[in-house]
């Protein structure tokens, strides 16, 4: 028998989910950045407002930034009313997103425990739970015994360095498969007639007084009626070109996965105090992350001692992980603000909308912020959920300080 051609038995390549069009020379709306936020904005522009002459320009490949590098934690148990409003809006959209997109996203509401390890942690946690309840966010305070019931593998003994004194629990929190989410949005945008243009870096802007008239790109100049910045860690590079400042510092943020394991971890556990958070993905790998690397960095990689510390913290909390093997580590570039809350809405240019500063925690906001940005563009007025996150809050002093709910917990 003659040898078979290698690959002859492989299935057909699946259908492409979107075209790869040449960019047109002009669009009603140009979105800079093909991460989750840019894609979600284009989707809701079409779905909610019938605006389809839209391009999403991406310098690399769709979701090649933070969108497919994050640890996919979705929750809405933030402290302040402003944050609870937008994150809860997002969570409600997540609950119907698979149907909306007609695409599997493996959204799994397995709940999140935010552990408390000191009296101060306990007081802050109870306060946050009460604030959450007032905002209609599902949340409860539970003691160590109940922590053990929700997640039997957490070490709740009293003889560890930072004993677990209890936790906040949000049962509706969960995880999703981030690349599927991006593909689901991309497919819908393409079906609606929007252009997803990859390998197209915005290198400058054309302006006329207080208006942006278009963008300069590595694939030519493109005129725009409205421009939306969704460039996450690279936002400062763009605002430097436009001549205004946003209080962002870009940092490396790393995450890692173990090899595939049997299902052992039924929920999400986060601990700000020992500096780690863990969930188990559908395939079986443990997904872990911690805080940012301290220095500014655009390298999409960080230092290994951060990983070492995060593993030490994980093994302290989950002794059962001691012999698991690290499979892969990676990093993204997160745009951190002074109050750990995003910046979204108006800019010095009348037809330029900004969206950035989601730092370590913007994946969970994806459908919510896309919805609100689309509304902002369509109506020319910041959506009520993004209004509190305006750039001018750093001048007025109306900060939305979420360091407690957002520092390590993403």
């Amino acid at each position, binding site marked *: 028998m003659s040898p078979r051609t290698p690959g002859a038995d492989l299935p057909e390549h699946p259908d492409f989910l979107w075209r790869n069009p040449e960019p047109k020379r002009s669009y009603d709306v140009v979105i800079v950045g093909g991460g989750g936020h840019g894609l979600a904005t284009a989707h809701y522009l079409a779905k909610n407002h019938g605006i389809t002459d839209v391009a999403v320009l991406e310098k690399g490949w769709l979701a090649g930034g933070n969108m497919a590098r994050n640890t996919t934690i979705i929750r809405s148990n933030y402290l302040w009313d402003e944050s609870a409003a937008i994150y809860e809006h997002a969570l409600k959209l997540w609950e119907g997103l698979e149907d909306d997109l007609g695409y599997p996203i493996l959204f799994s509401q397995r709940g999140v425990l935010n552990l408390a390890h000191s009296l101060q942690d306990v007081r802050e946690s109870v306060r946050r739970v009460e604030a959450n309840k007032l905002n209609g966010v599902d949340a409860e305070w539970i003691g160590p015994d109940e922590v053990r019931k929700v997640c039997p593998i957490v070490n709740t003994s009293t003889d560890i360095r930072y004993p677990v004194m209890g936790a906040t629990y949000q049962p509706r929190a969960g995880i999703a498969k981030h690349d599927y989410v991006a593909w689901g949005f991309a497919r819908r945008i393409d079906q609606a007639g929007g252009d997803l243009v990859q390998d197209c870096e915005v290198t400058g802007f054309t302006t006329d007084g207080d208006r942006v008239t278009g963008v300069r790109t590595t694939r030519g100049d493109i005129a725009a009626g409205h421009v939306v910045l969704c460039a996450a860690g690279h936002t*400062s590079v763009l605002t430097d070109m436009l001549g205004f400042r946003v209080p962002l*510092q*870009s940092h490396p943020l790393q995450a890692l996965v173990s090899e595939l394991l049997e299902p052992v971890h039924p929920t999400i556990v986060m601990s700000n105090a020992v500096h780690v958070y863990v969930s188990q993905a559908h395939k079986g790998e443990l997904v872990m992350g911690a805080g940012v690397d*301290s220095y*500014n960095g*655009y*390298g999409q990689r960080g230092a290994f*001692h951060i990983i070492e510390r995060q593993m030490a913290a994980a093994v302290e909390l989950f002794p059962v992980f001691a012999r698991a093997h690290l499979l892969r580590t990676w990093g993204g570039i997160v745009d951190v603000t002074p109050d750990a809350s995003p910046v979204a809405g108006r800019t010095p240019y009348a037809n330029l909308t900004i969206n950035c500063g989601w730092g370590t925690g913007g994946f969970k906001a994806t459908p919510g912020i896309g919805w609100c940005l689309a509304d902002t563009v369509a109506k020319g007025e910041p959506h009520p959920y993004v209004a509190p996150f305006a750039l001018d809050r750093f*001048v007025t002093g109306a900060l939305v300080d979420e360091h407690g709910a957002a520092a390590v917990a993403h």
Partner: protein
Amino acid sequence: MQLIECPWCGPREEVEFHYGGQAHVAYPDDPAALTDEQWAHYVFFRDNPKGRFAERWSHSAGCRRWFNAVRDTATYRFERVHRPDESPTP
């Protein structure tokens, strides 16, 4: 692990150092004369370049002294370090 050159102690492991962000941000001469916007820029806004950046670092687990560095934020490479009393960043 990256080695960072302390101008006093020489090359040491990165874990011994503490990052201090953008260098050469002077306290305003006459703070009361600043507008709210100027004050906000002093308090909250720092440069965030991709590339060369003049920074402050502290050798916190060594000699505990502060120094200045010029580092590339895309490659993480240090171009030079100098003591605060030496000539500032070119």
